[in-house]
Structures are given as C-alpha cells and as structure tokens.
C-alpha cells in the first residue's frame, strides 16, 4: 500500500495551490479518500474523537443491500428471454445473457453520472461526495433491460444536473435523483420504457406462440376491461410457457419488468440489510407496505371493477412497489426528516401507489410518481411536525 500512497504523494504537488492541475484538486482528493481513509484529525476544541462511520460507509451499505436484487435481476432477464423465445437455457446461459444486457447500462450510468458530478465539483470547487455511489446503481436498476444506452446517459445527466446539482449537490436535492432519471425517460421517451414490448429481449428470434410480453400490472389492468377476475387472468397469463403470474412467482420475481424491480423477495433481503444496519428508516418501509395493503383493502370495499377487487396482498408483489419502497422512498435526503413525518410519508407513498395503479389508466405503475410526489410533499409534512414541536414547547412556558 506504500506504493499507492507514494503514487498519490508524487502527484500531489500538481494539484496543490500553484500546481499545474490546481483546478482539479477536488478530483485528486476524492480519489485519494477512496483509496485511503484521510489522515484528518479533530480540531482542538469540540469533540476530540469521532465515530468510525462516515458517509462512504453508509452509502456502500445501501449499494450492498441492492446487490441481491441486481444479481437476481441479471438472472431473470436471461430467464425471460429464454421463455419468450422458447429456447432451452442453462443457469449459466441465462446469467451471461442477463449480464450482457445489464452491465453496459450499469457502466454507462456510473461513468456518465460520475463525469457529470466531477465536472460540477471542479467548477464549483466542492469536495466529491459519495451520494452517486448509490444513485448510479439505482438509476441502472430501474431501467428496462434493453433501453438504448444513449437514453440512459441522457437521463443520468438530466437527473444529476437538474435533480441534484442545481440545488447544491448531495444532501440538498428535493427529488430522489434516480426516480428523476426514470421519470425523465418515462415522459421524454415513453416508447422505450412502457408498453408490452420493452421488457423482454427477443433479438433476431421470434416469440413463441401465445407469448405476451405484458407486465403483471398491465394484465391486471386489462382484466378490468374484459371483466375476468384479476387472479385468474394473472394465473393463466403465459401459463402454457410456465411463466404465469401467480402470487408466488411474482413474489420470487420470475416476471418481466425493470432490471431489479421484479423480485419482492430480493427487495425484502435488501430491506433486512438496511434495517439491521440502521441505514434506512424501518418506519418508511413498513409504512409503505402497510399503506399499499390498506389502500388495497379500501379498493376491495369500493370495488366497481375487477382490478379494484384484486386481493390487496397482490399489490405488494406486483410492479416496483417493493423495490421503490425499500430503496427509493428511504433516500434520507428526499424523504421526510422527522420521525413522525417518516410514518406519514411512507404510508402515503403506499396509498398513492395503489390509487395511481388502479384508477389512472395512463400510468400502469404508480410507485415512481408516488415517490416523486411525496418527495415534494415531505418538507410540508416535516413543517407541520416541527410546528407541533414548537407549539408544545411554547405551551410548556405557560404551565
């Protein structure tokens, strides 16, 4: 390690004041602190010791929590391809097929995002922050598996610049950066991110007879139109191919969808890691699932069509609800900051997701808009929680 340290030390004069690359000192420091935890010491006044956890470790915890979903997503993309084309594929075939489609998206998301971030850091003379470790992963994971890479790059730049940097960088953003990227594509290039054709890659092969590329949410929505019970429609969808949308297969995640959103199980594994490490708020996660379930029950009571009558637990395993609630809603910067606020925020995300899914024909998936909408509302929720605290403290004075 001495070698690496010497390498850094050797470059250092160039980045110091008066050095030829002085402007880029923030890049130098950013890279050095990734290789080596810095040799900074506490000031002479104030806390003389500091906790061993820093923001990098918090962020990498989130990345690690997403890895099960990523790996499952890679495998599932291969799995979906072989089902659609009717070919036989081994585990390895599926994994390689999936990796070849996911890794380019991941690489583009990180490379473009970091480049944008670095550019801003140099211009603004900010230290490089760790936030993009998580964002880069999230952007890739919520993309359809075969999205054109230039769209990924465009969405990433839009999200980092408009979603984050214009507000002042990490910690200052109002909207979840990854959701901003996805929403940008959703409204700018809907053909590549919605419909029945984008979730499964056929390549030069043709789909087998009877194959439908629709997602579970689309199937559920359409069942209302022809008045078949949703559970029956889901159960018979692609059933001949062994790829039905039973509750169990949706829970496991062997269904088409964005790269890592399909598996509720893997989202729950991630949730377990995030909650055990204390990095994400369990209140938001529990509130999100609880809110969606409760709204599902309300829909059952008010049911005027088949979709509304769908058993409420199906909402929890369909679409991206689980992934969104676990990884997107819990982003500490864009979520509510007060403890009571986190409950309200989480529950409303669940409720809104189900409302959007069931009642709005234009948006089959509700979690994206629900999270973005609640990101906007979160400061308002916090405002009232803080106000209640102030009032409580004022009332104390008169006792």
């Amino acid at each position, binding site marked *: 390690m001495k070698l690496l340290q010497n390498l850094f030390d050797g470059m250092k004069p160039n980045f110091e004041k008066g050095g030829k690359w002085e402007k880029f000192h923030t890049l130098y420091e950013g890279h050095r602190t990734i290789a080596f935890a810095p040799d900074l*010491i506490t000031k002479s006044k104030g806390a003389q010791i*500091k*906790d061993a956890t820093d923001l990098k470790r918090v962020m990498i915890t989130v990345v690690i929590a997403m890895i099960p979903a990523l790996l499952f997503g890679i495998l599932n993309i291969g799995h979906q391809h072989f089902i659609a084309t009717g070919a036989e594929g081994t585990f390895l075939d599926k994994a390689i097929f999936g990796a070849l489609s996911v890794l380019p998206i991941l690489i583009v998301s990180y490379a473009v995002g970091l480049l944008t971030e670095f550019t801003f850091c140099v211009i603004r003379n900010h230290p490089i922050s760790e936030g993009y470790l998580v964002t880069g992963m999230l952007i890739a994971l919520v993309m359809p598996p075969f999205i054109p890479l230039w769209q990924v790059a465009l969405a990433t730049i839009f999200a980092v610049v408009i979603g984050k940097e214009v507000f002042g960088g990490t910690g200052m953003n109002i909207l979840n950066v990854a959701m901003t990227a996805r929403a940008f594509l959703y409204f700018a290039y809907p053909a590549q991110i919605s419909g029945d054709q984008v979730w499964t890659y056929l390549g030069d092969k043709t789909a087998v007879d009877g194959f439908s590329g629709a997602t579970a949410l689309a199937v559920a929505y359409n069942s209302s139109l022809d008045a078949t019970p949703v559970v029956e429609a889901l159960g018979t969808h692609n059933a001949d191919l062994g790829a039905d949308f039973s509750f169990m297969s949706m829970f496991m995640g062997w269904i088409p969808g964005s790269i890592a959103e399909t598996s509720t199980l893997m989202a729950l594994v991630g949730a377990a890691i995030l909650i055990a490490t204390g990095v994400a708020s369990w209140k938001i996660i529990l509130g999100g699932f609880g809110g969606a379930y409760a709204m599902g029950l309300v829909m059952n009571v008010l049911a005027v069509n088949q979709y509304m009558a769908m058993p409420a637990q199906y909402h929890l395993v369909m679409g991206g609800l689980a992934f969104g609630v676990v990884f997107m809603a819990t982003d500490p910067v864009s979520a509510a900051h007060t403890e009571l606020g986190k409950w309200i925020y989480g529950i409303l995300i669940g409720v809104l997701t189900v409302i959007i899914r069931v009642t709005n024909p234009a948006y089959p998936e509700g979690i994206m808009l629900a999270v973005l909408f609640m990101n906007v509302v979160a400061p308002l929720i916090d405002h009232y929680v*803080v106000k209640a605290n*102030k009032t409580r403290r004022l009332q104390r004075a008169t006792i």
Partner: protein
Amino acid sequence: MSKIVKLKKGFDLKLVGTAPLEFIQVAAATTFAIKPTDFPGIQRPKVLVNEGDTVKAGTPILLDKAMDQVIYASPVSGEVVEIKRGDKRKLLEIKILADTTVSYEKLGALDLEQDRATLVGKLAASGVWPNLIQRPFGIVANPADSPKAIFVSGFDTHPLAPEVPYLLQGEERYFQAGIDALSKLTAGKVHLNVDGSKAVPTIFSGVKNVQINQFSGPHPAGNVGIQIHHLDPINKGDIAWTIAPYGVVQLGKFVLEGIYDASKVIALTGSELTQKGYVKTYTGSNVSTFVGGSSQAENLRIISGNVLTGEKIENQGYLGFYHNQVTVIPEGKYEEFLGWLKPSTSKLSFHKAIGMFSFLNSGEFKVDTNTHGEERPFVVSGVFEKVLPMDILPTYLFKAIVTEDFDEMEELGLYEVIEEDVALCEFVDPSKNELQELVRHGIELLMYN
C-alpha cells in the same frame, strides 16, 4: 417533590483508560493559569495585575468590563510570571508561579443571613463566582439576575469521567455550606441530580435544602442541560443557574472559611497515560507533571476535560477552569487503506453500517483523534435524535443556526442547549460536522443581536 427520570436515548462510550479510584503520587504542579478563553461569555477581558506582581489565592487578576462586579481570582499565591497574548493582542493566559505553601486573601466567613444583594456582591468579589453558569447560553452567571432555580448534576456520564462522590470525599461540610449559599441565591429550588442507577452516595443523601432527583440512562443523562429539560425547562426569558459539584465545595469553603480555596481533585485518564488515578491540585493547574515526560508528545493528544467536550492543550498546557479531568489519547494522523470499507469490531461506532461490528464488542475501545472521514452535507436523518434525550429536533435546530434564522433558533430550543449537550451528536455524525462550534455560533448570534 423529587423526580425520578429514566432516559433511553443516548450512547455510552466505553473507552480504555478509566482512572482507578486511588490517589497517585506525582510531583505537584508549580505553575497555574487563568485562561479567559475558558469563559465563553467574556466580552472585554481586563487584566488587573502586571508581570512580576505577587498575588495571593483570591487576589483579583482579571475581570470582564462588560460585567465588572465579577472578578476572576488567582487560584494560588505566588508571582505573575507571564501574561500571554495571541493574535491581535487577544488575551490567552495569565500564568502564576505558585509559592510552596499557598497563602490566601482573607475575606472573612460569610453570614448567610444577610440580604441577598450583599451576599451576591461578596460572592462575586470572592473568586468563586465564575463557577456559577447561566442557562441559557452557558456563560458566567450575572449577579444582577435572579435565577428561577439552580441545578447541580451530581454525576458525570462523559467518557472516562471521574466518579463525582470520590472527588468530594471529606468535603461534606463544605458541600452543605455551598448548597445553603445557593439556596439564598434563588427564590426557587436547588436541584441536586444523582445517578438513579446506583444507590444515592452518602455525600448526597444527607444534604439538606435541596431537591434530590434521580436520573438514569446512557450518556448524556449526567449533563445538567438534559436534566433541566426534564425538571424545569428553560423558555425564552427564563434564567437558571448551574454549578458543578466541585464548584459547590469551593463556594462552601468561602462561606465557612472566608477564603478562595481553588483546590480540586482531578482524574488522570486515557489509554496513553501510564499513571492513571486521582490527584489533588488547584484550578488552572499545569498538567506537564501529570502527563509525564514529553518523549511521545508528538503523537499524543492531551485533553483538558473529556474526549467529547474537552480541549486540546499542549504538553505544558493548563487545565481548563471547569475541567476536573485530563485525558491522554493517541493522535490519529494516519491514512488507512480502504478505511471506510474495512470490517472491524475494534473501531468505536454508534452506527451499525456494513462492517461496523463494534456493537458486538462489549469491551472497552481504544480511540484516537482521527476523524474517520471528511466533512459532508447533512445526509443521514434521524441519527442526532437518537442521542439527544430532549424534546428538541436537533437537525432542524442545527439547520436554523446554519441559515441564521433567529426565530427558528429560539423556537426550536437553542435556549436549552449548550455545546456539551450536542457533543454526542457531533461524535455520531457520519457527515463529521462541527456541531459544538455551530451551537456556540448560534448562541452568540442570539446573545449579541
């Protein structure tokens, strides 16, 4: 009515280097210093002596022209050897070379039955007064004020903190006299708050003229600010005073003997100190004889006070006025390869993020001054709330100070906290912000605007 308060929020830092309950033999300190920087409220300090003057214990050597009734007195008798100034002639230290036997200014024992104004006047001119601290703001109490109550925390939950009953042993008579004097200074109550997880120590159980409250829970349960919040919270316009137990003893000695006896017992702690234990010295004592030779001083941090709220001092430095503890830990000036990623059970952390397994380690931790990361914007939410057992929203309070929003600062509770109350927030913050400095900045904004 005495209260029993059980607190849940907080965090006990278990560190290597507790002082065993015994007095150790070390050479006595020969120089002592009064540092105006120990008193955050001092606005215009004026030195009353010149280099070369001889002083007695209790001779006024400093006052604040903004509050000139209160004098800051020499803790020992001897010769003023240096008046040290820094940039822009800022007064840093007034050093006194002590006589071998201390002689005192004789001011005469205090009759507690005289009227309050006379009593306050005599106390303010005695040298013991700066022990009284005003809340809000954590500054030396103003003799012109009449506090609604006075609070004494009878235990210290800071890392490696001394055992308060051990500091006070043999001083029972003076402690009671000090409490009696305090009860004359307020129309309200004198609260003595003790550790609820143990039996009330004998030095406190017999004390009269006080309300004894029990507090239990992790640090900061021993912080007087937290205790005030749960007993009789400070709202805008309220004034309360606090005083440390050893200050009560010094007050009692003035009442009974009529002298400013600045002697105090301090604990020598920290993983790097070879000789740990308790020693008797005076306020403002030089620490060089306590911390041993200077051979390793380059790599050591000598702290006056504890690791959360203390102040770095030089090897030849002086104990802070309010401190009764010296802590010596290693400096942390090193780079660690992938230090942000490595799993470890030996690195102390409040968090359980990936690889931080310190919560599995029930032993004591050896810590150094490395910050373990760089300063970042606030990102993680809900952490400060877990270590501040008050009905206060710390994140919002800090942000109000950053944005210098006066109304918000007031409404969110800046009247109730001083640096030590947020020290734990500063420790656990993964974004490594200087929150104690921030709170003092906010207090100064409120005080001087």
